[in-house]
């Protein structure tokens, strides 16, 4: 027998009231390659941040803090748009 969810666990209708809870769903394991950041080369231009489709560039006070691997799908956009080649993609 299939094990379906219990309807009593849902609020009325097909709704979710915990905004942005998909952060708990980690897409990081979809990755084929992984970005590496060379902080020495980084000029904090934030190009990688504005183009990252998965919000995986961590920033603090307008500066790049690091790369968050929980959701990074390894697309490589960050490496491609970096004007200083501070990010490189490598096999995982």
């Amino acid at each position: 027998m299939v094990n379906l969810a219990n309807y009593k666990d849902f609020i009325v209708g097909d709704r979710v009231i915990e905004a942005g809870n998909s952060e708990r769903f980690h897409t990081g394991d979809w990755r084929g390659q992984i970005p590496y950041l060379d902080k020495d080369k980084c000029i904090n231009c934030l190009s990688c941040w504005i183009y990252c489709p998965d919000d995986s560039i961590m920033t603090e006070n307008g500066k790049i803090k690091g790369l968050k691997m929980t959701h990074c799908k390894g697309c490589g956009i960050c490496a491609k748009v970096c004007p200083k080649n501070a990010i490189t993609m490598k096999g995982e």
Partner: protein
Amino acid sequence: MKQEDIAINGDSAIALAWKQINPDVVAAYPITPQTIIVEKYSEYVADGHVSTEFVCVESEHSALTLCTTSSSAGARTFTATASQGLAFMWEMLPIAASMRVPLVMAVANRAVSGPIDIHNDHGDVMSARDCGWISLFSENVQEAYDLSIMATRIAEHHSVQLPVLVNLDGFILTHAIERITPLDEKDVRKFVGEFKPLHPLLDVKHPVSHNLMDGPMFYFPHKYQMVVAMHHVPKVAQDVFNDFEKISGRKYKIVEEYKCDDAEYIAIVLGSTFGTMKEAVDQLRKEGKKVGVAMPRMFRPWPIAELAKLMKGKKAVIVMDKHLSIGSYGPMFPEVVAAALENESMPKMYNYIYGLGGADTMVSDFISVFRDVEKGKAKRINYLGVKE
């Protein structure tokens, strides 16, 4: 406060009920024979009698979409349609229900194309029967008015939260002037009360996502959640009917009966036919025939227990369907038969298809139905008025 009786047609009576409720949003697209509802409501808007946001959309699909999301957003919302309009809305019908929006839609029942025919039958609403909407039927203009007010309370009840269809027969009621006793506007407002939506979209401090995508693990439980809500309807509806009786003096029941108690032969009908059938029953009773007629107030949820009780010990049950599932029975017939399974013994069951596309069915026709059944001349499915 007692109101003076007025002369009003069915469509205008719906518009009057809406005006008295003064919903936040009405969005609709005109279609015969529903047109008068939107025209009349537009007049109320133009004269400042209501504060409703009234939107004339470009199609029924958008009408129901707009109403669904307006209701989701937290606004009390009404709409109306008929026939092709309901068909065009079809995609949105189950979505509105699964989104659990308590919106109310009047349906001026009309045959579905093709061939195109603007007259009354129940083809439109019956083709929408599986969508998860509560479906109420009215016998006359007074009931169409009353149900429009009560539907709001039923839909919005927190244990229900399902959309409601208020059906009235096209032309036969929509365009007919009858005498009704309207309620005082203050009483109506007090009766329906404030709309208290659950998790409305416009509660921006608590952002909620509405209508997500389900996988197989969640779709079925979400549907079952609706089943449970439907189960609550008969009790909630009867409570609302009882409250309504207190302010109107008019009684409503889940299954309306006429001379069924001692009847051996009963007919089960929907809509205005209930009235015409009462006349047929009275004429046969004068001859000493033990006949009666009943109307389920709602087709969804289907009042199984009440109908089973009604059918107990009857010789025969005649199901009058104003629609035909081509290649099968009328839509109500299998449902009545299934309800009879709740009893230990089954009465004889006959299905009459009648009145399609507005074919007017007279008192004498209904009398002949009872006679044919009594004499054993009826077949399982009979097409009243069609030469076979």
